[in-house]
């Protein structure tokens, strides 16, 4: 499932294909389905017990990518980034342009033709171009238009052991886990929310939250792992192979302390690996969910992921399994947390 999901293209603002796919796969498990005007998908799964409390799970369908801003006279595509991508990961990448997914490459003149000074400079995305094989603007315009979305082209590949590389691990892991968890029934009503435009500033989830007004929300994400070469250990934000990441706080939100304690307690009880996110950098849908409408108890559970926002993100299948176990455990036991919460109130 992760292979299929990561190889689908859904640059922020262009999530239709993946939304169609998710609908085709899991509609049968839902009691109610809403596809809103932005493109967000909501699946309601009614609980086994009658309760007024609403649980919502969030994962975003969109990924970072590019968009065509112009076509040059000699038929090359100029582009801008949709969502944050480091300019330095783009050169010589393969891409798929427009709805027809025309293959192209991001070129750069040969090393032989560069002056010594040139080689010391980072090439900015404004100076890059995509080569699809057209020789004139007219020829290119028959197939490509300004505003066409462009996805990075990077197949899912297994590396050693359970490691794998793919694009869009952020946040197809969240989508994949939600799709699997929709097969089961839970005590409470659960809203499975597949949001759009997280990479644009969590725009889809803000709309979603105002519609659903959940009491408790869990955000399923991918988060940066920095356990790599040339990084001192004390700067590791998260590590691959150490289990799902429970957020404490980040640039966008503070995790609800009671909810976090509940999740950590469950992980310990069930012997599920977990780790905390040891940096306050980055943000996710939690930011807007926490404050949308009347406010909401929220926590994020994430898959550690190296080289996030590049075509070659790397994650660990073992972490994925543990993350799924943890989220499943939370859904199964969330009733006790809610009851306790209301008693305390």
């Amino acid at each position, binding site marked *: 499932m992760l292979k299929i999901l990561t190889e689908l293209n859904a640059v922020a603002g262009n999530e239709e294909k993946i939304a169609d796919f998710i609908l085709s796969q899991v509609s049968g498990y839902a009691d109610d389905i809403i596809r809103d005007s932005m493109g967000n998908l909501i699946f309601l799964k009614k609980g086994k017990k009658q309760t007024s409390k609403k649980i919502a799970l969030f994962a975003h369908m969109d990924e970072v990518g590019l968009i065509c801003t112009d076509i040059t006279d000699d038929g090359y595509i100029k582009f801008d980034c949709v969502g944050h991508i480091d300019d*330095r990961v783009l*050169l010589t990448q393969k891409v798929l342009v427009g709805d027809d997914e025309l293959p192209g490459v991001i*070129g750069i*003149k040969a090393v032989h033709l560069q002056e010594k000074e040139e080689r010391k*400079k980072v090439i900015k995305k404004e100076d890059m171009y995509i080569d699809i094989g057209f020789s004139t603007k007219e020829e290119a315009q028959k197939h490509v238009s300004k505003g066409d979305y462009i996805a990075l082209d990077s197949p899912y590949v297994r590396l050693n052991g359970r490691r794998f590389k793919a694009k869009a691990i952020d946040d197809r892991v969240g989508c994949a886990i939600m799709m699997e968890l929709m097969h089961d029934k839970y005590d409470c009503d659960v809203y499975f929310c597949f949001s759009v435009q997280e990479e644009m500033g969590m725009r889809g989830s803000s709309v979603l939250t105002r519609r659903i007004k959940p009491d408790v929300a869990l955000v399923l994400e991918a988060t940066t792992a920095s356990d*790599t070469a040339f990084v001192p250990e004390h700067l590791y934000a998260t590590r691959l192979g150490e289990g799902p990441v429970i957020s404490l706080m980040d640039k966008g939100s503070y995790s609800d302390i009671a909810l976090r304690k509940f999740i950590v307690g469950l992980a310990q009880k069930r012997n599920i690996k977990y780790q905390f996110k040891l940096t306050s950098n980055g943000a996710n849908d939690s930011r807007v969910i926490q404050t949308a409408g009347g406010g909401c108890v929220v926590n994020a559970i994430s898959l550690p992921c190296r080289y996030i926002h590049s075509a070659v993100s790397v994650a660990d299948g073992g972490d994925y399994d543990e993350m799924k176990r943890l989220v499943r455990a939370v859904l199964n036991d969330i009733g006790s947390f809610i009851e306790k919460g209301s008693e305390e109130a």
Partner: protein
Amino acid sequence: MNIIKEIKQLSSLSGISGYEHRISQYLANKFKKYCDEVYIDSIGNVIALKRSEVGSGKVMLEAHIDEIGMMVKSIDDNGFVLITSVGGIDPRILYGNVVNVHGVRDFIGVIGAKPPHVMTDDEYSDVIDFDKLYIDVGMSAEEAKQNIPIGSPVTFDCLNTELESGYFASKSLDDRASVAILLDVLETIKDVDLGYDLYFCACVQEEVGLRGSLTAAYAVNPDVAIAIDVTHATTPDESKGTFKCGCGPVICKGPNIHKTLCNNFISCLNNASIPFEIEVESGNTGTDAWSIQTAKEGIPTLLLSLPLKYMHTPVETLNIKDCESVSSALVEFLKSYKRTGDMLC
């Protein structure tokens, strides 16, 4: 022959300079089909002879089979693989690429660098050089040290991409495209007795100092040699001294090139109405033509080139029409070449 199919096959093989054995073996089998004698010499060159029953004299066609790449320098304490370059590579293209590490067997890995959030501002705006890049193969230090000996060659992962209008992108088209042209020429003239012996030389170690061609030319000692290689094609970031893809064969002129032979080659193309371009190289052409020219007692040499965009990257791009016209040009010349020596004066 279907040239593009052969180019795909050849570019998917891995062989950095000094590690070309897989390609030598593959080509020896290919040449055997239509050649009278084929052998692999002591440094890995494939030398194939198509004998004439009626005449004498020797013509040599040459292309190199090695590719640029990397080599494993060391493995760090966490299993990350540190690398250096073999042949000229712009380090700016490496971050975010997928590679094949040829250890005890082949392992797929991705090229990573420190994540942005732990980079200093200076690091963030700077070029990431070889000493700050590494390969992530998803292994622990122990696994990596067992499976990836120091000195293991590393190549770009091959993802052939057919673009529009006959364009094709892949790794190592420099110079496997020319090798495919050699095979195409052979297939075209397989039933023709040219009146002289024709040698096909697929040579090693061009990228590190034009070495294979030196020993091949010494062994063959031809009357005339033609090296086939790639030259820089025009791209949006470089128009000076480059050739538009689709222009046909690019014929080199200058001290590396035998003047009369070259003029005869040009008249031959004019007679056959094959369009071409002239490239002027006032000194070292940086190709095997340079080493062949002074092999043995001196060999009249030509250099025929194929325009190639983004040379020395994983997305080298050519137009298949150029491969076809280089092949036709060679066939025309070989058919008109006479042993009499009148071609040389």
